[in-house]
């Protein structure tokens, strides 16, 4: 009988002040074991000060095929970038 442990995605804060970053995945029966496994698999050389684990099945991802339409609303708003505005040189840095 198939009884595979669920897949968990692992996020690690590398050092204080940084965001958690996705580092990989692993299998574990529950959250507590997933944290312990993540420590053993992904922080053997002091790579982290904090670990998040989340069951992979709970992640919703955007779809690469819809990438054009999905990001379109902001693509057309070039004025959101500071380089849109020409400021005369004599004003100095802004």
């Amino acid at each position, binding site marked *: 009988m198939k*009884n595979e442990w669920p*897949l968990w995605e692992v996020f690690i804060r590398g050092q204080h002040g940084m965001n958690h970053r996705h580092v*990989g995945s*692993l299998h574990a029966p529950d959250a507590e*074991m997933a944290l312990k496994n993540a420590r053993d698999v992904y922080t053997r050389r002091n790579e982290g000060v904090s670990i998040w684990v989340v069951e992979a099945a709970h992640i919703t*991802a955007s779809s690469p095929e819809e990438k054009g339409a999905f990001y379109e609303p902001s693509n057309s708003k070039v004025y959101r970038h500071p380089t849109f505005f020409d400021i005369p040189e004599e004003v100095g840095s802004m």
Partner: protein
Amino acid sequence: MYAQMVKTAGSGVKSPEEMTPEERDFQDRIDRGEKIEPKDWMPDDYRKTLIRQIGQHAHSEIVGQLPEGNWITRAPTLERKAILLAKVQDEAGHGLYLYCAAETLGVTRDDLTEDLLAGRMKYSSIFNYPTLNWADMGAVGWLVDGAAIINQVALQRTSYGPYSRAMVRICKEESFHARQGFHIMMKMAKGTPEQKRMAQDALNRLWFPALMMFGPSDKDSVHTAQSMAWRIKMDTNDELRQKFVDQTVPQIEYLGLELPDPGITLNKDTGHYSYADPDWSEFFDVIKGNGPCNVDRLAARNKAWDDGKWVRDGLMAHAKKKAAAKTAAE
């Protein structure tokens, strides 16, 4: 190389005219150096070949723990024991990074494990050779991990994102492996005459099996062109092997050991060493399952999987029971 003779799916490299529009876009992305990510469109043959290659690579890391695990309890000092233990633990980690990369392609960990245990998937031929004494721990770290690094450094640039990222992580850890092995060799090569003899013997026995890790010679390698076009193979077998020889010969000389192949000479014009090929009939025989340790290695993996079943099942049952109790309480 931890993946050898990976069968490339499909009928070979297609010309742009033979490709579908999707295949052409895909190849263009690869040619531009873009990474392919799990949810992106990819040809079935690319997916299949990568599953074979990453799976075989992962299996090599896991089976590769066995020849070194053999010496943990007999390490000569507590420090060497702690180092070897850390190295073997790293190999387990490397196997896990790679299994998780393979899983993004739509196979499960258990599928891959079962394919290995049933002999449907391979692991590197090198791990079918025995580790006879402590000097082999030096030679394995130095030569086997050294050869693996050459292959894996190139694969950091592979087209498949999760594979590439696993390689980056692995390469960071791998140089510890090679250095600890060379350190053992230095100690023994400069030790008593008996220790030096052991170091020489380990080098002599493992030299040709290490050369075999890169796979058959280019003229006999049928899987290269398509895999290189897909950038899941970055250099040919002979190119990588030459790099390994060029890097290793000066290290042998530094150790004051004799060259394991008397034919090794430096070609002043090319700057490369010429060397003798390993016995390819032995290589194909080991791949087929007839190496010194094939049966033992697979038996050890099967035993570990079977003996661990009650633990895997027990932990899963416990997790389900706890989750049910939590739901009931809410």
